[in-house]
């Protein structure tokens, strides 16, 4: 048992196709590879020669789970290139549609992909037999997130209403009334969700991470802010390329990211929470306080609690935005393309998503760079497993594999994004 190989050929309950390969030698982890075999799709290549106005529609197709994140990072980058950035209610509506995506994506991952690990079910369908009320409530909460995206964006997956400069059409005040009613229910359901996650049993596993997220002066981050870490990084989005590098490794179709100065880093709900706790709304802080949650979380398994807290935040923030909404006179600002390069970042449900575009004077994209959160988290996921396995190395094969998969799911990996799924393969050398 001292030497073995564990492999999972197709890791379930993650978005996309990947595999995990772990080699154990003399009871030590010799090698961990998160292999992403999702076929490459070459978005950055075929964006060349397309019109700037097509970027939000095209890049949405990188990911069916977080299309809003792609649309938002794209419009942020292009609007900054042109120096023409909408404000006021258009800015607020963008936060609102992002709240919808967070509620939908977090609820999907929390209840349907991650909770089955904690409770010992293969999937939510089997979980529903023992917890019918929990699952029905989860589905309703998820639907309300989708309803926000659909109301503002036109449909849940690959919304059609986001454009550079704003929207094609903005809702009337009355269009948001039903959403508000539903969100009051959703906010209570999100509180129950946080309480449900806090009763789960968490493996004892804390690491010293470099957490990175956008940080805004006054708001919990969606679309704006500086890129900051708990270890001193504090840069503008324009400085991204100088501070981060991407490496192409043989076993993965996703490029690995790291900090130029240091090494791997951690993106996503825990990073945002740790770096932006002050900016959460009072109700979220109150619920966190009642459950005695620390302001700094270093156990990645507790990401499920933070997803619950962020779902609560998104419901509360959505209500705030709807309450102050006044329909803007124009659905978008006038955009006049110029030859320029622009950088944009936004907080996808699973972490910061960076886009960069170089655009010519005719408004055609000359060059594009897209760095999804999962490819940035890959190295941290691999490192987690290197530290997570040794104390558990004598567990029966099946149990060890399950726990490793759960450790990967902590990051809500979105592998379609990162290639622009998962197999687990553990090798023990005899």
């Amino acid at each position, binding site marked *: 048992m001292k030497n073995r190989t564990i492999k999972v050929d197709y890791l379930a309950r993650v978005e996309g196709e990947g595999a995990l390969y772990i080699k154990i030698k003399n009871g030590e982890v010799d090698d961990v590879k998160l292999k992403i075999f999702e076929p490459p*799709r*070459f978005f950055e290549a075929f964006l060349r020669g397309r019109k700037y106005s097509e970027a939000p529609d095209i890049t949405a197709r990188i990911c*069916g789970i977080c299309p809003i994140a792609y649309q938002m990072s794209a419009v942020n980058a292009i609007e900054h290139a042109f120096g023409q950035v909408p404000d006021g209610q258009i800015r607020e509506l963008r936060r609102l549609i992002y709240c919808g995506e967070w509620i939908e994506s977090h609820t999907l991952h929390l209840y349907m992909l991650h909770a089955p690990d904690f409770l010992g079910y293969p999937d939510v369908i089997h979980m*529903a037999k023992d917890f019918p009320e929990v699952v029905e409530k989860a589905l309703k909460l998820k639907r309300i997130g989708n309803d926000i995206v659909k109301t503002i964006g036109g449909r849940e997956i690959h919304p059609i*209403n986001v454009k550079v400069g704003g929207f094609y059409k903005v809702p009337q005040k009355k269009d948001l009334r039903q959403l508000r009613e539903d969100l009051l229910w959703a906010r209570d359901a999100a509180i129950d969700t946080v309480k449900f996650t806090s009763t789960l049993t968490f493996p004892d596993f804390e690491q010293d991470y470099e957490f990175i997220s956008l940080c805004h002066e006054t708001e919990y981050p969606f679309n704006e802010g500086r890129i900051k870490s708990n270890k001193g990084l504090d840069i503008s989005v324009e400085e991204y390329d100088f501070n981060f590098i991407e490496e192409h490794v043989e076993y993965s179709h996703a490029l690995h990211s790291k900090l130029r100065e240091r090494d791997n880093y951690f993106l996503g709900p825990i990073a945002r929470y740790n770096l932006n706790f002050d900016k959460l709304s009072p109700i979220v802080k109150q619920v966190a306080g009642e459950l005695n949650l620390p302001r700094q979380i270093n156990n990645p398994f507790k990401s499920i609690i933070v997803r619950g807290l962020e779902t609560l935040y998104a419901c509360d923030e959505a209500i705030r935005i709807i309450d102050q909404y006044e329909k803007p006179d124009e659905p978008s600002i006038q955009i006049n393309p110029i030859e320029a390069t622009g950088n944009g970042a936004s907080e996808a449900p699973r972490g910061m998503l960076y886009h960069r575009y170089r655009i010519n004077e005719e408004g055609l994209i000359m060059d594009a760079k897209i760095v999804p959160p999962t490819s940035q988290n890959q190295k941290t996921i691999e490192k987690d497993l290197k530290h997570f396995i040794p104390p558990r190395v004598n567990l029966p094969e099946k149990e060890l594999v399950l726990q490793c998969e759960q450790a990967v799911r902590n990051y809500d990996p979105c592998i379609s994004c990162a290639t622009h*799924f998962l197999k687990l393969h553990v090798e023990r050398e005899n």
Partner: protein
Amino acid sequence: MKNNKPKLAVFKLSSCDGCQLSILDAEDELLAVLGAVDIAYFPEASSRMLPGPYDIGLIEGSVTTPHDVELARQIRKDCKTLITIGACATAGGIQALRNWKDVKEFTKIVYAHPQYISTLDRSMPVASFIHVDFELRGCPVNKYQLIDVIVAYLNNKKPNISSHSVCMECKQKGNVCVMVAHGTPCLGPVTQTGCGSICPSYDRGCYGCFGPMDSPNTTSLARNIEARGETKYDIMLAFRGFNAYSEPFRKESEVYEK
């Protein structure tokens, strides 16, 4: 009891996962639909993966690697009824834009070590390699159409999916025509219905994400758009979107490529 239920399998090739996510997005219908079948293979939703044969298979994604070709052939052997879902599986998807380029150049643009990447020159619909029983369109598919198709096959019926244009749907909804009233270029006249004509309902032109309707007159539409002052390049791009490699859109885009 459980073993008598039809076995459903969901497979993925090259895609964004949005079409299979449509199943999980049918929140109000999910437990009823999933209750009627045995989810035998659906890795995105379940870690329980049973071997075939399956009664109904759904495939999302296009064929882009030698491995995809082998997988598609195996899936055909394993599934009694096989349905492709979405623009990638039925037309090659947005990644079919590579079909007009040198894929080696593309690989070099994205990856530092192109020798690590194994890929086919073209992104192709699944039906180019194997027989499929039904192709459901859309980028993404409409979840209600998807449920209709699954329910039809569960009841040994042929699915009833309309193949007329988006224009018909706009008229039924009472939308003002964006092309006639505002001069906005719109692919609605040549695109299959099914989305709910959402783009025109949001004051923009249709971008063809459900692919070509039955017998589309793309030539006439393209000339009309050109007469409104759009450039040849813009018209080429309009047809070269999420269903770029479907025959009618491919041919029309090539007319305007020169």
